[in-house]
């Protein structure tokens, strides 16, 4: 079982570096939303790579990367949805949340070396709300990025709690296998999300459309 999960873990890591290339291939000929999404994928790939790099070289804790992961994910997906939904207020909410998180770090700089459950929950759930709004918008007309939207909704909603409970690893009472289990669940969900991103590219962007 562990060997299988390790395999999935490796797959997600390499996969996350592979499909941004597919999206970059179609970068120029597509709209702004597509560009934001591609930048998001590239950013996540870089963070994944740094994560693996830090683990492999044993440079120390890689928890600080989680803050980059969440904030960059929030910013880029907010821009992505602001573009898809054509709602200006999403940018406003984004600014507001960014200010809030900055205040959190000023208030308690040691937060940098722990997980930030409040920040995770707020940013993930906001994106989930945008995804739901997008579903509503897509009900009656043909819309782009539906498969990715399904992935974002399902992954961000179900993984919100996993990340929010990340600080459990600091709790001595909780055995280590528990956080490992949470990590495993996350890996499986993440692979499903990646597959959906790949399917989106495969179905809608793999063949250059003649306009």
């Amino acid at each position, binding site marked *: 079982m562990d060997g299988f999960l390790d395999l999935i873990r490796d797959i997600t890591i390499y996969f996350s570096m592979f499909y941004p290339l597919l999206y970059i291939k179609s970068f120029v000929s597509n709209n702004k939303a597509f560009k934001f999404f591609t930048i998001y994928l590239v950013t996540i790939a870089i963070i994944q790579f740094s994560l693996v790099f830090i683990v492999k070289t044993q440079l120390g804790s890689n928890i600080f990367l989680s803050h980059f992961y969440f904030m960059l994910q929030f910013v880029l997906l907010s821009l992505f949805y602001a573009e898809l939904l054509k709602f200006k207020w999403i940018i406003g909410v984004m600014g507001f949340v960014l200010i809030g998180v900055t205040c959190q770090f000023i208030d308690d700089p040691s937060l940098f070396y722990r997980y930030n459950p409040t920040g995770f929950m707020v940013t993930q759930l906001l994106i989930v709300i945008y995804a*739901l709004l997008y*579903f509503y918008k*897509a*009900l*009656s007309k043909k819309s782009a990025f539906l498969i990715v939207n*399904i992935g974002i*909704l*399902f992954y961000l*909603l*179900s993984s*919100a*709690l*996993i990340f929010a*409970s990340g600080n*459990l690893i600091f709790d001595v*009472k*909780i*055995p280590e296998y*528990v956080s490992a*289990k*949470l990590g495993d*669940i996350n890996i499986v*969900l993440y692979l499903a999300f990646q597959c959906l991103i790949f399917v989106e590219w495969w179905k809608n962007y793999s063949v250059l459309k003649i306009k």
Partner: protein
Amino acid sequence: MVEELFGTENQIVNIIFIAITILLVMSISIVLFFYFSRNRIKKTQLEKANLVISHQKEIFRSTIITQEEERKRIAQDLHDAISSKLNIVSLNANFLAKEDITSTEANKFGNSILKVTTTILESSRKIAHELLPPTLQKFGLEAAIEELYEELYDTQKYKIKYSVSYSEKFLSADHELHLFRIVQELMSNSIKYAEATTLTFLLETKKNSLYLQYNDDGKGIDLNTIQKIKGLGMIGIENRVAILNGKLNIDTSPNNGITVTIELDR
């Protein structure tokens, strides 16, 4: 491991696992809900579109039928009023061309030719006039409708009351023609089929709306049969009102005449 999970220390962990499962189920059900609603909405949209298409087809079909009938009528008119009479002219001219005719005969044929050509001219003017009344183009809708009623009044067979206050350029030129055709059609129905004696007509435009009321005291007709009788040109009227984006209301029953109102907004 199960026992461990249910131990008091791991109660929180347990709850977290359950919560994650619930969130997962929730997100999947949202996606499914979205998927099925979308399908249903798509289906209703398709049905609506089909309905619109079939309606348009019906309009198209009846437009072609009316067009064909119109052509038939024109062909008949041309044949009766022009071709047959031109035959007479040609025959008379033939006689004139002979060398051995006396001047009295020549005069006779000449007069006959003159008489016939005059009627031909009158007929061709009438046909052209019916096809597209020059008044409409030159003096506008109000004058054209007034002319229509004056012509009818001149026959002295009908009592006519009409009031037209149409602000010029309320409708575009082709829409004016549609409205004119509607009035023409209604009048010809009243004369041809309804045996009406009194006709009243009201047309007025306000700032953004137009109101037309047409009324006769003829035989009237059962509303259920009105659709079936293509000759009445009712379908034509309906189509034209549809093109004008107006609201058509027909109120009639046997022996009670007919009242037609058309309302449209700019």
